[in-house]
């Protein structure tokens, strides 16, 4: 009953967002402040605004949330009430971020998203990796949010206002501006899982797949991109911040693409791919040009469509097959049955992967090209950052094509060279020798789940054209070549049944382990130290005071001999001493 109410409420709320976005479309920008209170010289309170960016993001959030809510009706059966309630709350929080004109309203939405993300990742709280992934996600983003909060302080106090529309970079001291934007960047890096706070996103994958689609692909992680786009004037005014952003983005996109190329679980590949794609958006933003911002937002929209689609497809695999690990999927694919049993999923996933890889004609191709174009133009203007971004995005495009192809082939196709024989993933599978799993009952998911797939798949194609076709043919050609160079090795490896995964990549460069040793272990030690310190140092003083009191009383009790003459002697001695003292003082 309650679950039904929340289901309806969830779908309704997301549709409402779409409706609001549609109503606001074309409206002139405006702001409205409410519930403010004066604290010293600054005002703390709430404010909302509407402008093109708000409408765009509201539309994205609304559409993806609607798809996810509908999809979840079919996907999720247990604990549906809390699930739908949290997804709705998340959607509301994301909407708050999008419409916020007050940095505090933005922060509220920002962190409530984080909390919802935490709660939704741990939706399957029976599973250990879900629990630890959730905690990790929350703590890493929380750490970043501290920087974000401080950034708000620095900017807000520096500008004398916490209203986004009132932040004027020209009015702020350049040092303050750089500090503030760098601190905000910390929050952005955490939320969007960029280097060095990237490790939480892949570990967030034990959450339900629709949640991954909504939160960890389309909306929340893209909130960082949105934030920089929102405060673009402020960020662009600080060259240092933009350079740092460029470096972070370029390192992240390559790092994450490499990690994705070695991951052996569909959702993990997609997670790393998300990190990498977000980095592409940041790289576009870091150009500091209008084209860069436009390209980033374009990519954000298309990415929301195709990555949301891909995660929902992975969800279908999980739901129908029971696992999205390559090893398990290969058991079904060996006979080529997966593709035939799940035709809709196969087609939509192919579209999604094509869009992600940047195959010409799909949305991802256009949006990525607009990034490349912006970088190219910027680089042409003599910017080192522009060149840097151009090269990195180019390399990443190749790597992206590689891991998309690898994923597609290994999940859906039996290896031609060794039809029926042992391929890379079969060799690792202890159950490979057993009977083939019973695939007779394997069928595509219900229409509730497939409808969003189809919708998003259409988006993953059509969204590329909504921006109008203005291709720079040189860039387009070059990126197509890069894609082909990425696809070919993946195909050749697969056809030989090989999947070389360098240890370095498989361990994701050991970052997780290093963080564990650098942060988790010392904190554990410190916590032990603190507990022991309280017990054995601070507590010891207190106990020592108590003991010394008890000991002193033991000692003084000995004076109580019961012998009257002793008492009298003491009294006389006391009188004599007092008399002497009086004499001494008097003289």
């Amino acid at each position, binding site marked *: 009953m309650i679950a039904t109410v929340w289901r309806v409420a969830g779908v309704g709320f997301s549709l409402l967002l779409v409706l609001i976005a549609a109503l606001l479309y074309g409206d002139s920008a405006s702001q409205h402040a409410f519930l403010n209170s004066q604290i010293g010289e600054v005002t703390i309170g709430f404010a909302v605004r509407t402008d093109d960016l708000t409408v765009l993001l509201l539309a994205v959030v609304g559409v993806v949330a609607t798809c996810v809510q509908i999809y979840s009706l079919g996907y999720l059966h247990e604990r549906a009430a809390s699930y739908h309630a949290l997804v709705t709350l998340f959607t509301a929080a994301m909407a708050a971020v999008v419409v916020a004109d007050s940095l505090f309203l933005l922060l509220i939405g920002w962190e409530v998203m984080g909390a919802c993300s935490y709660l939704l990742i741990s939706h399957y709280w029976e599973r250990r990796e879900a629990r630890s992934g959730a905690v990790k996600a929350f703590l890493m983003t929380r750490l970043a949010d501290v920087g974000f909060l401080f950034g708000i302080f620095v900017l807000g106090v520096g500008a004398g206002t916490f209203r986004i529309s009132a932040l004027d970079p020209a009015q702020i001291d350049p040092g303050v501006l750089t500090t503030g934007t760098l601190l905000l960047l910390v929050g952005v890096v955490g939320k969007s899982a960029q280097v060095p706070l990237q490790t939480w996103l892949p570990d967030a994958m034990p959450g339900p797949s629709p949640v991954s689609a909504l939160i960890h692909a389309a909306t929340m992680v893209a909130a960082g991109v949105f934030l920089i786009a929102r405060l673009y004037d402020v960020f662009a005014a600080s060259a240092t911040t933009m350079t740092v952003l460029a470096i972070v983005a370029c390192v992240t996109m390559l790092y994450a693409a490499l990690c994705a190329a070695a991951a052996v679980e569909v959702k993990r590949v997609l997670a790393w791919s998300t990190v990498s794609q977000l980095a592409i958006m940041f790289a576009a933003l870091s150009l500091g040009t209008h084209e860069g911002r436009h390209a980033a937002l374009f990519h954000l929209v298309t990415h929301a469509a195709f990555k949301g689609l891909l995660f929902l497809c992975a969800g279908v695999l999980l739901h129908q097959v029971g696992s999205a690990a390559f090893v398990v999927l290969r058991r079904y694919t060996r006979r080529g049955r997966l593709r035939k049993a799940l035709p809709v999923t196969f087609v939509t996933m192919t579209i999604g992967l094509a869009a992600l890889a940047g195959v010409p004609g799909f949305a991802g191709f256009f949006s990525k090209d607009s990034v490349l174009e912006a970088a190219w133009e910027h680089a042409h203007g003599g910017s080192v950052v522009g060149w840097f971004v151009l090269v990195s995005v180019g390399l990443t495009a190749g790597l992206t094509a590689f891991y998309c192809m690898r994923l597609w082939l290994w999940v859906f196709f039996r290896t031609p060279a060794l039809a029926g024989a042992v391929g890379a993933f079969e060799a690792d599978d202890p159950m490979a020798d057993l009977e083939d799993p019973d695939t007779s009952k394997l069928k595509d998911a219900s229409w509730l789940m497939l409808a969003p797939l189809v919708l998003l798949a259409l988006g993953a194609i059509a969204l590329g054209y909504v921006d109008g076709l203005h291709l720079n043919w040189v860039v387009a050609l070059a990126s197509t070549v890069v894609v082909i160079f990425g696809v070919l090795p993946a195909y050749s490896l697969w056809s030989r049944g090989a999947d070389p995964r360098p240890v370095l990549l498989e361990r994701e460069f050991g970052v997780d382990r290093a963080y564990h040793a650098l942060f988790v272990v010392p904190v554990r030690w410190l916590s032990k130290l603190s507990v022991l310190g309280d017990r054995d140092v601070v507590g010891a003083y207190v106990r020592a005071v108590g003991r010394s009191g008890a000991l002193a009383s033991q000692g003084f009790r000995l004076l109580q001999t019961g012998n009257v*003459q002793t008492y009298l*002697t003491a009294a*006389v001695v006391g009188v004599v001493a007092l008399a002497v003292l009086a004499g001494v003082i008097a003289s």
Partner: protein
Amino acid sequence: MTTALFAVAAVVAVVSAVLVVTSRRIVHAALWLVVTLGAVAGCFGALHAEFVALVQILVYVGAIVVLVLFALMLTKAPTNPLPTLTTARSPFAAAVAGVLALLLGTGVVIAFGKEKIKPVPAGDAETVGTAIFKTWVLPFEVLSVLLLAALIGAIALSQRKSGES
């Protein structure tokens, strides 16, 4: 003349008092107390307080010491010398008493070293009686009540059964 008389009585009092607190025989101590009290009575006489001296002899020597002797007998005090008549603290007690004596003596000498007493006969029964019953009649009555209280107290104490607490 009175000074000489006083000096003699004083020497007797001191010597006997020393014997009171050092004698190994308790009964002897009680008897030396008689001597001391008598000598002090002599001192009173030398100071022209004849009435007080008489009261001293009557009450102290006549009543109190007899009471003490009764008490000694009732508590089965041995008449032979006792080595353990003083406690182990006696040297310390002596030291304390000595220091106290030194202190008081010094104080007395410093304060009254040059004062003289002119012996005037002013201690007969009439004078004292007049003083008590004219000037000090209220304290006297209070004192009598106190005496009564002490009497009752002593009776109450002696009526108590042993072991009752």
